């Protein structure tokens, strides 16, 4: 075993070589650590700095761009806790606060789909819990390589089983998500997970270690060798570099332990027993101790040998870096520690006092009385390197944008008929219930809307019927053509999805998935995306409450499509007034609200013809805001409402028909254009004919186009009385795709119980 490297030894052996490169630190970063400390770091300090200064934890490439979210932001009274804490918190009225956030677990999910996805859910749920909130739902925006690629058959079923396996066991309803296929995600699937939590204003908790003499308590699972180097190796550098020998780089989740941890923590919060709290996620104890300490005065003493271990052979460095799941770190006043420990005991959760808050500004960690870490914690947690990476528009950009989209549009009746069936059986559009039926959407008894609705909608208060809606959206094809507009369009779509169900958009979170930041073209995509999102939030008057950046989603020179996943949270005063997506009964008039241009760029129809070029549509946020107003003001007029997005009118109307098996007859001129165009900013609504005047007046007053296209009823989709497709045929094409592709994937089940 290696000799313990103490502060004293480090001071006296400045010449000793250290493996900082292997740990992912660059020469100048190592030099800076030496400068901060006035000596070489001990091996434990080096471990801490290396994980905390990794891209994943330090945001070193993204920081200077993300600043815009704060700078441009509108002042919002709704924002109770903003960017920087574990998750932002928004006021939804009646004394309630809601917190929500998305996080990525992309790389781990490629290596081990089940556990990668499972621990992704576990991690974001702990973030939400850490704010003092009860987690109330999850969502899972996903991206995979081509649906029929062999590796997708390995990755997708495993990811889905992992998300379900973990989320179901926690008792969190899954209320929505996305599944999109594109070959650029083949070696880089995106597994983003969103969690929503609710609390009373007074319950908000912060990650802060204040008050000398207060105790540092580690509670939850024991610490093992899981994911050591996981942060720096898995999340920051391109694949291939191996972690330390014999240490699993894969973390295994224990959802039962997390469920108990949640209930135990909520009971602890209810009795007001903590001063500060932090979950252990990426970078484990290194992160938790340095962040807690730097949010206080900086002083903290940790006795590392007290950390309960699952594997006795772990070294202090490894204990500091371990990413074992289902652990939390709390700061507790000495007078409250007994009650704290008693609640842990009730839930059979192990809890250990591993240190205390001290005067001074140093985080000191000892190992059997030997000092192995003595650092200013802010330098670990917040003062990592900041890069202003080179940015350059890729040379292919102008070329692809200038490409003319020329796809064959079907003309005769039979062609249109089969084009519709082809479109709705494209894996991107096809029915996702093979996936979503593996997720519990009912647990907790407050799910008002869930997949396949436009947004998930939850009841918050059973007496007043207050509720929230959440939607996640991205359109990577548009982002690829124009990342600035793409980000705006994604935000607009997400807001529209919220308003479509009857809720008012209130706050935004995001998960920005990109290739390597060391590629100037990727950095251009990234910076344009951030600029677009910040501008769009400003224009729509919405605060960004937090988010996550995932870089290095890249195989060799091929980066994924720029994929900013935007999550919007909305509020609905009375959940009983929500608008569902499906036609509910015959005899309703069907209207199309919104923009009337013709756009095939980036559409599913173009994609099915291998065309990815063209000029992306421009977001018209003023129009989007007016459309949202129509949707909200007209809520009681709408029998159903469904957003138009991927697949255009063809996809939307089929989904509205299939939801409850209520057919429709519509009249279209330029039929193919009308069916397959993907112009943003449109919604399909059904109203009682007696409300026609009211709708016309409302949309007029907001200058939103409003055009009647047909009526509901019958057992088919009838277009111009010429093309007729029975509900049975629509249903078959739409629903048979996923079972055929993924129905026999035993591998996904290997690991689940």
């Amino acid at each position: 075993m290696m000799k313990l490297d103490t502060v004293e030894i480090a001071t006296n052996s400045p010449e000793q070589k250290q493996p900082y490169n292997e740990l992912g630190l660059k020469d100048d970063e190592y030099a800076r650590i030496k400068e901060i400390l006035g000596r070489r770091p001990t091996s434990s300090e080096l471990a801490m700095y290396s994980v905390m200064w990794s891209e994943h934890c330090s945001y070193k490439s993204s920081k200077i761009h993300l600043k815009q979210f704060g700078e441009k932001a509108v002042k919002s009274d709704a924002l109770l806790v903003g960017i920087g804490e574990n998750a932002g918190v928004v006021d939804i009225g009646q004394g309630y606060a809601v917190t929500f956030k998305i996080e990525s677990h992309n790389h781990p999910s490629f290596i081990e789909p089940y556990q990668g996805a499972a621990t992704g859910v576990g991690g974001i749920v702990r973030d939400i819990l850490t704010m003092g909130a009860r987690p109330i739902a999850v969502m899972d925006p996903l991206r995979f390589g081509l649906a029929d690629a062999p590796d997708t058959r390995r990755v997708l079923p495993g990811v889905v089983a992992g998300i379900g396996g973990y989320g179901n066991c926690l008792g969190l309803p899954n209320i929505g998500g996305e599944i999109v296929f594109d070959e650029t995600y083949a070696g880089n699937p995106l597994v983003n997970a969103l969690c929503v939590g609710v609390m009373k204003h007074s319950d908000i908790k912060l990650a802060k270690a204040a008050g000398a003499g207060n105790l540092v308590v580690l509670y939850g699972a024991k610490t093992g060798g899981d994911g050591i180097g996981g942060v720096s190796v898995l999340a920051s550098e391109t694949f291939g570099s191996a972690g330390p020998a014999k240490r699993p780089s894969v973390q295994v989740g224990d959802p039962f332990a997390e469920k108990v941890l949640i209930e135990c923590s909520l009971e602890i919060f209810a009795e007001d027993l903590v001063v500060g709290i932090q979950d252990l996620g990426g970078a484990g104890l290194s992160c938790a101790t340095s962040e807690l300490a730097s949010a206080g005065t900086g002083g903290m003493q940790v006795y590392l040998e007290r950390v309960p271990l699952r594997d006795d052979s772990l070294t202090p460095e490894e204990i500091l870096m371990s990413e074992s799941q289902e652990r939390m770190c709390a700061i507790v006043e000495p007078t409250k520690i007994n009650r704290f420990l008693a609640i842990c005991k009730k839930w059979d959760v192990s809890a250990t006092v591993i240190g205390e808050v001290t005067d001074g500004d140093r985080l000191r960690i000892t190992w059997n009385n030997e000092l192995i870490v003595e650092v200013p914690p802010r330098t670990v947690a917040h003062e990592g390197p900041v890069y202003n990476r080179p940015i350059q528009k890729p040379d292919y950009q102008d070329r692809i944008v200038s490409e003319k989209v020329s796809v064959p549009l079907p003309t005769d009746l039979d062609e249109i008929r089969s084009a519709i069936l082809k479109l709705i059986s494209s894996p991107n559009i096809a029915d996702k219930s093979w996936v979503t039926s593996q997720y519990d959407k009912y647990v907790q008894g407050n799910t008002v809307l869930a997949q396949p609705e436009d947004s998930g909608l939850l009841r918050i208060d059973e007496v007043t019927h207050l509720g929230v809606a959440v939607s996640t959206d991205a359109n990577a094809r548009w982002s690829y053509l124009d990342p600035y507009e793409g980000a705006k369009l994604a935000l607009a779509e997400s807001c529209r999805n919220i308003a479509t169900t009857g809720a008012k958009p209130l706050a935004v979170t995001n998960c920005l998935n990109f290739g390597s930041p060391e590629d100037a073209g990727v950095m251009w995509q990234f910076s344009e995306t951030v600029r677009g999102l910040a501008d769009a939030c400003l224009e729509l008057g919405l605060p960004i409450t937090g988010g996550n950046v995932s870089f290095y989603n890249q195989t060799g020179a091929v980066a994924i499509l720029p994929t900013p996943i935007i999550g919007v949270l909305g509020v609905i005063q009375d959940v009983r007034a929500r608008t569902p997506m499906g036609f509910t009964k015959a005899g309703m008039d069907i209207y199309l609200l919104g923009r009337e241009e013709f756009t095939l760029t980036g559409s599913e129809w173009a994609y099915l013809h291998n065309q990815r070029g063209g000029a992306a549509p421009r977001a018209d946020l003023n129009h989007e805001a007016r459309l949202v107003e129509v949707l909200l003001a007209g809520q009681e007029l709408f029998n159903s409402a469904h957003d138009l997005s991927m697949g255009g009118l063809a996809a939307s109307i089929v989904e509205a028909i299939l939801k409850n098996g209520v057919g429709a007859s519509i009249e279209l001129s330029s039929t193919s254009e009308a069916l397959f165009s993907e112009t943003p900013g449109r919604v399909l609504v059904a109203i009682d004919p007696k409300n026609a005047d009211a709708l016309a007046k409302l949309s007029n007053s907001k200058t939103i186009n409003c055009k009647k296209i047909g009526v509901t009823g019958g057992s088919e989709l009838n277009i111009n009385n010429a093309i007729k497709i029975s509900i049975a045929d629509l249903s078959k094409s739409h629903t048979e795709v996923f079972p055929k592709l993924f129905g026999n994937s035993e591998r996904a089940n290997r690991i689940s119980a």
Partner: protein
Amino acid sequence: MAKIIVEVMLKDEILDPQGQAVSAAMVRLGFNFVTGVRQGKRFEISTASTPTSDQVKEIEKAAETLLANTVIENFTVRVEG
């Protein structure tokens, strides 16, 4: 009839929540001498006739690709009975 047995266990360094839960339950039920439990899988594979050594080799391949997830699990293959 002889069968091929494949046993799949989580690698030692990998967390085994199932084994942990069983172990805790056993201690609660009074089996205090138990210090740990690991839970794995056991496959009994039947073949039409007594397995040949080639077939056992094939099953080793199957174990590696299908029955075990070698990222986190080890396996053994043997003929029994």
